Structures are given as structure tokens and as C-alpha cells.
């Protein structure tokens, strides 16, 4: 049951082989046992979860079950969840009980999913190792001396350790795909605008996108079908007809043209990652796909462009945390300005402050054109590179990360080195394209390796098909870490 697909769980629930309350209890018990070691969850509320599960059971009994009725799902703590603590991994929101649901949360409820808890994350989603959380670092269940990746590190660790069947995540520069890769999961970042950002605490609004993290492409397709769709409350939500992302899953791969960007296969990639990725590509060729070399000449500029655009948007978004309407307020201050400065000085952690300062700098008078506007122009160049590459292929593949999961503490004192761990994922956010990571083997220390898939705009269904066919032929996605609980 703990390694079951959403389809399997759904069938078991529908045939009343297990109730949602029993299934939720199974996972809640595992969470209670494993969370002290992994720190994957910030909030666990057994009673709330079970109350929701019992409601699901009533609907199943009444023959009114929604498509994923009764399946437990963990939410990243960036999604406002009514009645639940929603901290965004920050002291600033350590006491914030959300008065409303994010669009993603209400969509998941409508699909019948039961909220299993709120997962740990890098503070305000700023980090690649889940070490910046106010609530402490998350450990990688494959090796607890290593990081799970970030910022959706709690979500990744929870699903990898089978504490949850699936989870929601968000991806601004790789925060779904990178932890999915480092924890051996399947994760998908949709085309910008496909999933509503309403109630998803904002980091860099032109890049932030929610998406599913699960064991398989099929599970991700089911979850994406449930969470996507137009929402007038997000001004950048795209008004498109609803999609069934499962519709192309079974399509054969013969004739598929896979583009391999030569810039992604350079010297930055570790040998163990390279050999797993190459083996995955060989599997695709055996399935009838062809590979062609493509070029993304400006992709090397994606990390520097990102570290102008994302901090600029963050410094603006995070100005709302002033200790007046919600969040942390310093206990002592002399006047209003001092209250702002102390509340923000004490409420934000070091990485968040650092990014706000970068943002304040690149947006300041006299520097806007040189930094922010220049970065936005380079963003266009990066998007143009992808457009050109997609003239020669249907999908792009490469590594998700340059190496397998690194040790806790290895990069936490060197921001630039940490930033470079997202070198293959960031360009996708800048261009607004959909991307995935799927497990494709194991490398150094028996740690999982992720294969990155990048689709053209709105090609999520095709991308999921390409991932699913690989998962029919391989079993990397079914592997789980040794049980320690």
C-alpha cells in the first residue's frame, strides 16, 4: 500500500478494501515515526486529517466520490491552507494560521484528496538544500547525512520515504525538479500560468509555478489534471480549456525526436550522473526515439540572470511582511520605522535577507537598466534559444542536477556554489517552459539520479507520455530507500 500508485489506492478505496481513514492512519503513523529523523513536515494534525478522511469515506459510501477521493496528499507549507499553520519555512509566519485556501489546495480538496500535513521547505522557497528553513534542515531519506534538495525538500523527503503518496511543490528555479532528482521522485513544473498562484506565498512572481511531486509520471498526470486550470484571482493564470493530462500517456515513442543541448553535457556534470543519463537515453533509443544535438548558447547566463530577476521580485513581494497585518512583530521597538526594521530583521533568515538586499540593489536608482532590464533581455535570449531548439526536436533531455545529493552543510556557507546546483533547471523557469525530473538510476553513494525532460509550451501531456513510457520499461521510480522506521 505504501508504494502503491494513486490509481491502485483509488481502486482500493472505491472497492472499499480500505477506507480513507485507514489509509490516512497508515501514513500518519509512518510520519509520526519518521519525522523526528527526517524533519520533512512542519505541521502534522492527525485529527484534522482524519476528520477530512472520514468525510471522504462518507462520500465514497454515498457513491459521490471525486476522482481522487480519499487519497492523502501533503502540501508544501507555501500553500495557504485554511485552518492550518502556513509558515513558508519562516519565523516571519511561524504563527500564521491561514484564513483561506490557496487555489491549488481548494482544487485538491475538490478532487477528494485529504490534507496529510504541511511539508518543510527552504525559507520563502529560497534555497536548494532545505537548509534555510526556520524549522531546521530536512534529511534525505536515502542517506540522512545528505540534503534532500530544495526548496520543496520536505515534500521530496516525505514522498521518497513513503510518508505520503504524493505532495504538492513549487518551482521558481528548480524547486520541484531538483529535490525530485535528489530523492528519486517524479516531479513536474508546468508551463508558467497553468497552475494558479493564488494563495501560494509569492517569491518571484514571474517564475513561481506550482506542480505535483509523486512516484510516477502517471501519478503526476492525475494530480496535474486536478490542480491546473484558470483562476481569475491570479492575474497571470491562463484562460485555457481544462486538460486531461493522462490522455497521451500510452502513446508509443517511435519517431520521438529528443534534443540534447550540448551545453548540458559539458564538463559540469559529474561522471555518475552522466552515465545514468546516457543509459536512460539509450533506453529511449531502444524504444524508437532518436536523439539530436541542439544548442542553448545562452543557458550559461541563466544563473546570473535569475539572481537578478528573482531577488528583485522577491524584494518587492516580501515588502508585505511588515509586522502589521500578519506575521511576526518584534517584541520591542521605539517607533513605526523601528518596528518594521526589527520585525523584518528578526523575522527573516540570512538567505532571505541576502536576496532582499540583492533585489533592493538591482532595482535601485541608476542600476535598474544595467541589471534588471539587462537580465530581462537575457531572459528573452534564453527563451529564443529554446524556441530554436524546439524546431529540431519534440522534447529536450539532460541531467536535472550536476551531481547527486550533497552532504548537509557542504554548500551552506557559499551562496554562489549553492546557486550553481540549479544550473540545469533555472533556464526552464526563465523561459516559462514545462519541465520534469524522473528517476533514471543511482550514482555515487547509491544516491538517485534525475533525468530532466523539458517540453515546449503547454506540452505537459506529451512530456508525461514520454516519462510514462520510460517508467513502463524501467523500475527506478518504484525503488524506495531502505526502511528505517
Amino acid at each position, binding site marked *: 500500500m505504501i508504494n502503491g500508485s494513486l490509481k491502485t489506492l483509488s481502486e482500493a478505496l472505491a472497492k472499499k478494501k480500505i477506507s480513507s481513514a485507514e489509509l490516512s492512519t497508515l501514513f500518519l503513523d509512518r510520519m509520526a515515526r519518521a519525522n523526528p529523523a527526517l524533519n520533512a513536515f512542519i505541521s502534522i494534525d492527525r485529527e484534522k486529517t482524519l476528520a477530512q478522511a472520514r468525510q471522504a469515506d462518507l462520500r465514497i459510501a454515498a457513491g459521490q466520490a471525486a476522482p481522487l477521493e480519499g487519497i492523502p496528499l501533503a502540501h508544501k507549507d507555501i500553500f495557504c491552507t485554511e485552518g492550518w499553520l502556513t509558515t513558508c519555512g519562516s519565523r516571519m509566519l511561524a504563527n500564521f494560521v491561514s484564513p483561506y485556501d490557496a487555489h491549488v489546495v481548494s482544487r485538491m480538496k475538490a478532487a477528494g484528496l485529504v490534507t496529510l500535513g504541511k511539508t518543510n521547505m527552504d525559507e520563502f522557497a529560497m534555497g536548494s538544500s532545505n537548509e534555510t528553513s526556520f524549522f531546521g534542515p530536512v534529511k534525505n531519506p536515502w542517506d540522512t547525512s545528505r540534503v534532500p534538495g530544495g526548496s520543496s525538500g520536505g515534500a521530496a523527503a516525505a514522498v521518497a520515504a513513503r510518508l505520503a503518496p504524493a505532495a504538492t511543490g513549487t518551482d521558481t528555479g528548480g524547486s520541484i525538479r531538483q529535490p525530485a532528482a535528489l530523492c528519486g521522485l517524479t516531479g513536474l513544473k508546468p508551463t*508558467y500560468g497553468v497552475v494558479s498562484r493564488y494563495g501560494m506565498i509569492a517569491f518571484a512572481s*514571474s517564475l513561481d509555478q506550482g506542480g505535483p511531486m509523486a512516484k510516477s509520471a502517471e501519478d503526476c498526470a492525475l494530480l496535474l489534471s486536478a490542480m491546473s486550470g484558470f483562476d481569475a484571482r491570479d492575474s497571470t493564470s491562463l484562460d485555457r480549456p481544462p486538460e486531461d493530462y493522462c490522455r497521451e500517456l500510452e502513446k508509443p515513442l517511435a519517431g520521438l525526436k529528443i534534443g540534447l543541448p550540448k551545453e548540458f553535457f559539458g564538463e559540469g556534470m559529474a561522471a555518475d550522473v552522466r552515465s545514468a543519463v546516457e543509459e536512460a537515453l539509450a533506453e529511449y533509443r531502444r524504444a524508437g526515439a532518436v536523439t539530436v544535438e541542439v544548442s542553448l548558447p*545562452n543557458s550559461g547566463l541563466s544563473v546570473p540572470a535569475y539572481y537578478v530577476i528573482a531577488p528583485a521580485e522577491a524584494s518587492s513581494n516580501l515588502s508585505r511582511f511588515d509586522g502589521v497585518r500578519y506575521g511576526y512583530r518584534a517584541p520591542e521597538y521605539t517607533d513605526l520605522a523601528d518596528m518594521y526594521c526589527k520585525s523584518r530583521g528578526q523575522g527573516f533568515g540570512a538567505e532571505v535577507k541576502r536576496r532582499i538586499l540583492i533585489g533592493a540593489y538591482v532595482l535601485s536608482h541608476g542600476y535598474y537598466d544595467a541589471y534588471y532590464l*539587462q537580465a530581462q533581455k537575457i*531572459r*528573452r535570449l534564453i527563451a529564443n534559444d529554446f524556441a530554436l531548439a524546439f524546431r529540431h526536436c519534440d522534447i529536450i533531455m539532460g541531467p536535472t542536477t550536476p551531481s547527486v545529493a550533497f552532504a548537509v552543510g557542504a554548500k551552506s556557507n557559499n551562496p554562489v556554489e549553492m546557486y550553481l546546483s540549479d544550473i540545469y533547471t533555472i533556464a526552464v523557469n526563465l*523561459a516559462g517552459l514545462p519541465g520534469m525530473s524522473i528517476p533514471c538510476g543511482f550514482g555515487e553513494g547509491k544516491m538517485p539520479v534525475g533525468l530532466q525532460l523539458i517540453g515546449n509550451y503547454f506540452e505537459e501531456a506529451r512530456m508525461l507520455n514520454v516519462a510514462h513510457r520510460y517508467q513502463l520499461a524501467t523500475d527506478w521510480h518504484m525503488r524506495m530507500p531502505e526502511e528505517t522506521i
Partner: protein
Amino acid sequence: MSLSIEQVERLAHLARIEISPAEAELSRDQLNGIFVLIEQLQAVDTRNIEPMAHAVDAVQRLREDVVTETDRREAFQAVAPEVESGLYLVPRVVE
């Protein structure tokens, strides 16, 4: 480009974040490292390139000018640090 301690303190003030002298010092070194990374952008020729703000170049939607929100003041103020009679309290700004 290299920031001085005074510039870091000025940025922190602009961002309304109180930082200690030790934090300012550490921030300066780390920010300068990040600015070296960012500096690469300056060498790129971007003449005649349109800046890209939104991935799919969507335009701002307009909606009818009608009331769509319900009054949930109590729920929203329940999470505020200090309220009284429906008002958010802050230190006195006008003597």
C-alpha cells in the same frame, strides 16, 4: 562592483531590515561574491532585444467593476499582531 559596509547598511535601511555590524560584514562579502556572478550579464550584447517580463507575453486582464469579495475582516484580523475595534494598531506616527 564591490559594496562597502556603508552601502550594505544603506541597502538594509532601504529594505527596512535591521542588521547587526557582524551581519553587515558577512553580507558584504557574500553579496560581493554574488555580484561577481551577476556581473557576467554586462558583457552580453542585448541591443534591439525586447525585455521579457512574462513567459507567454500575456496582457493584464480587466474585470467588471463590481464587488466580488465578502467581508471577512474578523478572520483576517485574527492573524494580526495587534488589533482593536477592527483597526490594526501600530506605534503612534502623528503626535
